[in-house]
């Protein structure tokens, strides 16, 4: 395999962009069919190895492949490059009248983290759209299902598939080799990992890292109506539940306005109920950890009650898996309770939330913002100023559109280089 990917850089011409988009789009339609054998195989992997529940895995696959249809891919290319056909040959740019052409990196090395499988698929699709040879290193802890996806691509478009390669995740030497022959290295992971990888990237090779990020829910009091309560709780539960709260789009806290028809405490109860409904399936091998966490959290609540001489905030167990804590201040919760602990923060003044979020600075990613349009616009302006790069509605945190500026950057546009042909 080593030889094959090292020789591919200058291989025969790539098919036209339209053909690539159609191939990937066609494949996505197959993946959306429940009985597609590769989908079934990926589901088994997501449940058996990655630890997602079956329902969660189904939802996860749907969310990925609904975004990767031909019309959406074409729209992405248009949004980022203006005209997708710039990737085929020189064409006149309507704005400047110049003839220009876009080229993706010859070879891209992609390095993926173990938390969620989505970025691996998207990153390879972006590479294929830019006609790049893709070399991927998945995490040895959890490989996701990129290998299964590439297997399925072989059946749909063998020519396209043979430009994608997976590197042995444990072979550091081959990864170094891959990075050295790449034009771009794209890495996903925690900040320490990214810093380490960046050090290994040779000068002249571009590097793009997607590191630590944090997302939140932000609901103004007018969104807290009796009529809206269950829907809002359902949508929030979906945001939390979909990737088992492992991704950077999973909300770490939900800020809920006081003084609405429904109190933050009532919202917490409703959220707890909805999370319970979504979590009827058992987590593999995690029953013990969940029970232990619950019991330790109860201990913690007691201790804080003794310490502060008042209750440390509403708390409710949500089914077996989640715990919702409603409070007005940041609780110093022990780390063991963190991964399935949902903080609902009650607030009176929007400024307090903005101040609280500003602490997270460059780590801010997405905020699901609910409220009246006029107020929403004003707050969006402030959030953008803080560094938030995506403001969406509750229920869609985990479903970013393909053309979302991930980490505030262009996806394809920041990977391509341009040639201008002057007359």
């Amino acid at each position, binding site marked *: 395999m080593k030889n094959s990917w090292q020789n591919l850089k200058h291989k025969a011409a790539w098919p036209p962009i339209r053909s690539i988009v159609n191939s990937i789009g066609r494949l996505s339609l197959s993946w959306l069919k429940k009985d597609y054998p590769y989908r079934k195989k990926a589901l088994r992997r997501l449940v058996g190895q990655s630890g997602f529940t079956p329902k969660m895995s189904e939802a996860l696959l749907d969310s990925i492949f609904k975004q990767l249809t031909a019309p959406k891919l074409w729209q992405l290319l248009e949004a980022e490059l203006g005209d997708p056909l710039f990737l085929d040959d020189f064409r006149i740019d309507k704005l400047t009248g110049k003839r220009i052409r876009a080229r993706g990196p010859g070879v891209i090395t992609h390095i993926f*983290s*173990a*938390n*969620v499988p989505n*970025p691996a698929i998207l990153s390879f699709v972006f590479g294929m759209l830019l006609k790049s040879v893709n070399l991927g290193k998945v*995490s040895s*802890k959890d490989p996701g299902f990129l290998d299964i996806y590439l297997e399925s691509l072989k059946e749909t478009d063998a020519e396209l598939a043979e430009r994608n390669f997976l590197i042995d995740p444990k072979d550091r030497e081959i990864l170094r080799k891959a990075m050295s022959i790449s034009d771009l290295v794209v890495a*996903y*992971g*925690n900040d320490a990992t990214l810093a380490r990888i960046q050090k290994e990237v040779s000068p002249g090779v571009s590097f793009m890292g*997607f*590191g*630590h*990020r*944090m997302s939140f829910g932000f609901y103004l009091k007018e969104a807290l109506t009796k009529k809206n309560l269950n829907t809002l709780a359902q949508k929030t539960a979906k945001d939390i539940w979909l990737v088992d*709260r*492992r*991704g*950077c789009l*999973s909300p*770490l*806290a939900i800020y809920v306005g006081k003084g609405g028809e429904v109190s933050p405490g009532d919202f917490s109860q409703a959220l707890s109920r909805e999370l319970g409904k979504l979590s009827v399936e058992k987590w593999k091998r995690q*029953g*013990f*950890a969940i*029970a*232990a*966490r*619950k*019991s*330790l959290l109860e*201990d*913690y609540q*007691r*201790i*804080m*009650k*003794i*310490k502060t001489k008042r209750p440390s905030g509403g708390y409710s167990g949500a089914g077996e898996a989640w715990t919702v804590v409603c409070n007005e201040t*940041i609780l*110093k*919760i*022990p*780390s*063991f*309770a*963190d*991964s*399935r*602990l949902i*903080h609902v923060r009650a607030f009176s003044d929007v400024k307090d939330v903005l101040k609280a979020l500003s*602490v*997270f600075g460059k*780590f801010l990613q997405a905020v699901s913002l609910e409220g009246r349009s006029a107020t929403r616009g004003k707050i969006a302006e402030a959030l953008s100023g803080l560094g938030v790069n995506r403001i969406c509605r509750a229920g869609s945190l985990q479903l970013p559109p393909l053309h979302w500026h991930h980490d505030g950057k262009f996806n394809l546009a920041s990977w391509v280089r341009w040639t201008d042909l002057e007359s």
Partner: protein
Amino acid sequence: MNTDAKALDRKILKFIERHRRNDTAPESEFNHLALEIFEYQFKRNENYRKYCLFEKKNPANIFSWKEIPAMPAMGFKELILSTFPVREAVKVFKTSGTTEQSHGAHFFDTLRLYDASAVPVFKKYLLPERDRILCFFLMASPAASPHSSLSYMMGVINRRFSGGRGKYYFENNVLKFKELCGDLRRAEKKEAILILSTAFSLKAFLDYLRSNKISFRFRQGSRLMETGGFKGRTKEVSKKRLYSNCEKFFGIANEYCVSEYGMTELSSQFYDTTLRDKISRVKRRSFKAGPPWLRMLVIDPKTGRETKNGRIGILRHFDLANRGSVIAVQTEDVGRAAGKGFELLGRLSGADLRGCSLSYEEFLAKS
């Protein structure tokens, strides 16, 4: 110290004296003293009493030591857990902050129980066949680290078993490798030695030896005590690899490497039975064992009751030497019953967040 405390301490010291050479004590004797200590603590330790009342437990409705409410270890971080006014404390041991920002404190109005508890169990599991050994401590001295229970205990060991000849090689957060190597080299051919270290320092020292191509062949009977210094550290090292490196670089065989398990929140310690078994030629799978005044239960978090048939649970300790604080401590350590003690499997950690996600606590710890 009040008269009640003095009277109780006399009983505990008698218990220790009576059973210092035994593996266990009669159930009724342990139970009787445990309940008496609990009653004393319920009366005098206000925060512990409040905690017990949450569980609707008091001395009148408890008849077995197993029912005594266990204070979660994190309680030492948030509450003052003392049976006496803390201004009367003669010693305060502080927990090392791991992911938490705050440090826990364990107050002592006397160290007599602590000292009396530490010595016999150390002897039983580290020096079963001898009384003296030259110690090398890869940790800070008691003077340099007055709030470390581990350093304090090492001081006790040094005085009792090394005649105060043992040296400490961790100073100002630096391990003095060169000095340590020089001293070890001088002792190498002379006498059997005992190296005492946290797992973290031991790994650092072994790494140093590897990169400087240094190794030792200590006299027969040399041994090693290592204690879990990895709590909260991101870098984990397998014990198996650590011990196999001890054999490689020190010539100390696996059976002569003993892992200690202690907590700032306790006054007594557990040790692997490995070395003692080897010397008394007992063939069995080693486990962690403590003295007769320290008992342990493995608790099933789902039911809050003791697990059965060696099933995994969270460890809960009952330490009669903890008279001045709380007798029962609920840990966040995971283990299972094994032999006449337990097997330590690790620590509860809920945070399974990897990749691009970041937790609040992780963030706050970073900022």
